[in-house]
């Protein structure tokens, strides 16, 4: 509704959306990548968005972009600090929780977005395997060490999309 913002959104083709809670140990990987990306020179047309803890509001954010890169921590059964890049279709959620305001399943929001015909053309998820998700304001050493690789993977995806 803000004209300047609308123009920006029209111009921006890629959104990098970081997800996570920096008060919950390794769940803060997303916010840490957000801070790191702020220091990187990015090509025009890329918005870096701190998506906070996600939630249904993400539905209203991702609809504005043809390409979205989500950065989150995810338990994919890997070694702590291991980084994987995947698309939503490659995985299925093992979460058993029902929807709540704060801890809903990111994959469900993406599925909902696809179902209502609003989803970005491409969605990539850059994820790190956490070691510890519990109240703490620091990342574990292994996840902290994985941050440069996460940033590199995000930049690689941006390069692929902009070339």
């Amino acid at each position, binding site marked *: 509704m803000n004209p300047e913002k609308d123009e920006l959104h029209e111009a921006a083709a890629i959104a990098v959306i970081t997800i996570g809670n920096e008060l919950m140990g390794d769940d803060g990987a997303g916010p840490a990548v957000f801070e790191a990306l702020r220091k990187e020179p990015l090509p025009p047309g890329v918005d870096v968005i701190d998506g906070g803890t996600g939630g249904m509001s993400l539905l209203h954010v991702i609809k504005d972009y043809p390409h979205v890169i989500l950065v989150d921590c995810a338990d994919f059964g890997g070694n702590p600090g291991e980084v994987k890049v995947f698309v939503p279709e490659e995985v299925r959620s093992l979460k058993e929780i029902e*929807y*709540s305001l704060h801890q809903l399943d990111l994959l469900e929001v993406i599925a909902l977005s696809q179902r209502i015909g609003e989803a970005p053309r491409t969605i990539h998820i850059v994820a790190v395997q956490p070691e510890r998700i519990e109240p703490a304001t620091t990342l574990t050493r292994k996840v902290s060490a994985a941050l440069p690789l996460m940033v590199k993977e995000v930049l690689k995806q941006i390069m692929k999309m902009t070339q």
Partner: protein
Amino acid sequence: MSEIAIKVDHLTRVEGHGNIILNAKNGAIEKVQWQVTEAPRMFESFVRGRHYHQVSHVMSRICGICSIGHALCSLKATEAAMSVTISEQTELLRKVALHAENMQSHILHVGYLVAPDLFRKGSVFPLIETHPDAVLKIIALHRLANEMSDLLCGRTTHPITLMVGGFTSTPSERELSSLRDRLSNILPVCDEVNQLLLDNVHMLPDFTRETEYIGLTSDTEYALYDGVIGSTDTGTHPVEDYESIANEYVVPYSTAKFASHARESYMVGALARFNLNAEKLTSGARAWAQKFGLSPISYNPFMNNVAQLIEYYHSVEDSIALIDTILNKGLKNETPSYAVKAGRGVGAVEVPRGILFHDYTYNDKGFCTRANCVIPTNQNHKNINLDLEALAPTLLGLAEKEIELNLEMLVRAYDPCISCSTHYLTVEFT
């Protein structure tokens, strides 16, 4: 639990974890209890020693859903402490901002959290397969409310434009006019969503228990931003008397404070507001109340869900009227002017879940020396417990799953700002 010492000066808990405990043996209830197990959050301590211009920004972090309401209540308390008067334009714009939050929160609750109960689904996501049209409409209502918050407050959550005495920036006339059109266009969608709830309202249990309802009330409007304290039992009271209304106390089984006034418990929220102020609703909202057969005083807590949708309608219609007034008067570029001074002030605002109080004391340099907040959800905890005690015995003939669902639906009806409760709820049977 017993190791957690709750002190009166510490802030209430508004997010977190709650449990329902039900023990029944041989058809008799031994124990039924709503427990809140969240740790104290210390916000009142956070703002001590902080300069007044920071306080509303810190306090808005109490909640990610009611952040506009917390910011406005905080600003009102600070303005009361320093005798700051605001312009008519600021008041009108703040009212629109509060409507945005009310709409955002109510549709999120009814659309995403309650609707799955009505359709016997585990969450909103499977609903897209069975009721795609309904989900699309709910998303449209949520989206408009979010964008309205963006426009008035600078972003969807944790407002940045609201400040002591006014706004750091206001929307342009063109933006307000465009918002007005969008609000006007959303009314038919509201009608359809309301009709959907009406078609399924029989799924809400027919349960009543008399209690006291408390909320802001006003002679001139459906009180949300301003008014005096109203009680269905005792009439009206000045906002400054809030401590003798809430009478907060602690219980051993909950880390959240409880509250009581004329009776053992009272209820705040959309149903309380409706019970106190129904005749002040906009015409469209009143018409929907009639269709739902809702009239004051309704003692069915499950009707809080219905009252929320009626309030969504009211917020849309009233926002249109407020924007018309702002545009007719012409949007002015205003700069707040006031002097910092020592004093104590109490602010009260109706946030989606009920009446909210902030109370600050400042020194002559504008630094906060004392703070106290009374949050809606905590005012409801005792009422939830008593409702559970009354409802549970009526359910014992049902299958365990149905008992569990009914108890969960009751707690959800209050829309407690222990929002994660939709999955953190656990029900134990012994």
